[in-house]
């Protein structure tokens, strides 16, 4: 029994069914309750702010970048300059300003991560919802197909596909999205399976609501919180994946810059120009970490037990 006040996490008071009266003003909808909980998690909020800052910086790259990231001039004077007031992140082997490159690189890294996530989540949600709701042999068939698909080592699949199709960014996003949807599908399926049993779904049947409306109006909104958590986590992972791919030379090719290929360029010059790999690396780490923290925060905030708080 500690002395701490106000534990964020919900208490499970033993043996007590729920009896609630109207709560304080402004915290009524399930989403606003979740919002409030999220906001009280300072780490998650900090992470969210960080993501927001990075996104804005990436968006405004043309305005914020002090130099043209592709400009190559007076190479011999400007190459491999360590970080200074003129070049906060130093310069690369061609004298290009690393800060500007990092800003433009952020655009690609973030965009690829988010868009690939959208592809994965859309496919995964649809697949999982159909399997979960239909049940029976359809579910069986879909899940076994999923198992077979999962059996392929994902990374090699990406390598293969990226090699076969010339990796322009659009294709890359599709490839990454189409190899990452399986976890979401499983998650949605199990959510829907458990939601299907809930009494309010039975009640919807009882009034004669057709299947597709039950899925759309009742099941998916309630499964949405899991999707959100899984999606944010996925973005972090996908950004990392893109970085690795670009690092290996299979992802985005120069001259388009992403953090991944910037690190790769910095690898060769690691001992003479540590800053080339360092700054993109740090940015990458911070970004992925931020998405993970936001995902954690969302998971805590959206905990379904948040609605049924146990009173004594």
């Amino acid at each position: 029994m500690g002395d701490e006040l106000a534990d964020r996490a919900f208490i499970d008071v033993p043996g007590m069914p729920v009896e609630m009266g109207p709560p304080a003003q402004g915290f009524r909808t399930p989403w606003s309750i979740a919002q409030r909980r999220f906001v009280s998690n300072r780490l998650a909020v900090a992470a969210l702010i960080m993501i927001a800052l990075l996104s804005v910086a990436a968006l405004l790259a043309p305005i914020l970048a002090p130099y043209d990231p592709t400009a190559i001039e007076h190479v011999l004077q400007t190459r491999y300059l360590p970080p200074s007031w003129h070049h906060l992140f130093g310069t690369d082997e061609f004298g290009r300003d690393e800060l500007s490159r990092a800003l433009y690189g952020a655009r690609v890294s973030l965009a690829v991560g988010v868009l690939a996530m959208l592809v994965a989540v859309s496919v995964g949600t649809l697949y999982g919802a159909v399997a979960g709701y239909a049940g029976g042999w359809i579910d069986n068939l879909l899940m076994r197909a999923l198992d077979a698909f999962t059996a392929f080592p994902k990374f090699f699949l990406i390598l293969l596909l990226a090699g076969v199709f010339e990796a322009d960014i659009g294709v890359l996003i599709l490839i990454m999205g189409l190899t990452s949807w399986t976890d979401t599908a499983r998650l949605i399926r199990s959510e829907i399976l458990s939601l299907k049993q809930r009494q309010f779904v039975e009640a919807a049947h009882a009034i004669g609501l057709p299947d597709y409306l039950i899925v759309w109006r009742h099941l998916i909104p309630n499964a949405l919180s899991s999707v959100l958590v899984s999606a944010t986590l996925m973005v972090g992972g996908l950004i990392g994946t893109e970085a690795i791919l670009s690092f290996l030379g299979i992802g985005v090719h120069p001259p388009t810059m992403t953090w991944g290929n910037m690190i790769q360029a910095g690898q060769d010059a690691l001992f003479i120009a540590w800053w080339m790999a360092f700054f993109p690396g740090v940015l990458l780490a911070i970004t992925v970490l931020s998405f993970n923290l936001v995902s954690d925060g969302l998971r805590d905030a959206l905990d379904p037990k948040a609605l049924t708080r146990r009173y004594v």
Partner: protein
Amino acid sequence: MLLSVRNLTSYFFLDEGVLKAVDGVSFDIQENETVALVGESGCGKTIVALSLINLIPAPGRIIAGQVLLSGEDVVTTPKDRLRQIRGGEIGFVFQEPGSSLNPVYTVGHQIAEVLQTHRGLTRKEADKEAVRLLGATGIPDPEKRAKSYPFQLSGGMRQRAAIAMAISTRPKLLIADEPTTALDVTVQAGILDLLEELQQQYGMAILIISHDLGVVAQIAQRVLVMYAGKLIESAHVDALFSSPKHPYAQGLLDSVRLRADRNAPLRGIPGSVPDLLRLPGGCTFHPRCSVSDLSCRTQFPPMLPLAGDRSCACYRVHQ
């Protein structure tokens, strides 16, 4: 006096405020007596039970009061002694049948473990005693059952096993928190009979917590009625059921006596249990009370004694 509870107060400290789960509850339990703690959801009875062994989950804790077990205050005893008391002098049976049983160990093993820890028996002796206890709680074929895992037993049998574990240390007080609520009524009868039998055999006091007035009427000698964290009436079972004094107790008994007359209106208590975070001022029951007046809104009425070894917390009753 076996157990003497004085001004027990346990609060939960939440984001939204302070939840006054138990607010100044005082009562006594004598040796060999069966006392029932009755109330509806949200009245705090489970927290009272947990407070008696100082086992309230965070963010709750006991902030005031004493729980004197034969003179020793459970609230302030050091951890080591507390561990001895829990499961030793005070046995606990939970609502979910067998929730006190670890699913990955056999039933016999768990009871034996308790015996070894608390009564210092050897492994062999403990195993034998465990089988005997299982038999004593009415489990058929106890030797075989001792080797079963909890999930292999039905709800009623799990509860019997949990009771066996709880009484294995010959506790002076057995606290049973809604022990039959999750069981079928035919199984419930058996468990209640068992508790009565064990009490006679082992001479222990029982504190049974329940919302079921039928169960209370059948097994209890004295009844304590709780509402929204406070004790509002205390009386012998016959007295309470024949003439409840507190308006809430009256309403409760009226609600249960549905059978009386088909043509009589079904009478409950209007409104619902208050939010423990936002309790009404004065007497917590007054918004739902048919006989309340202005004086009931100022301060919570003190628990005052009445004739016939009973007490009640209500201004109307003592006028």
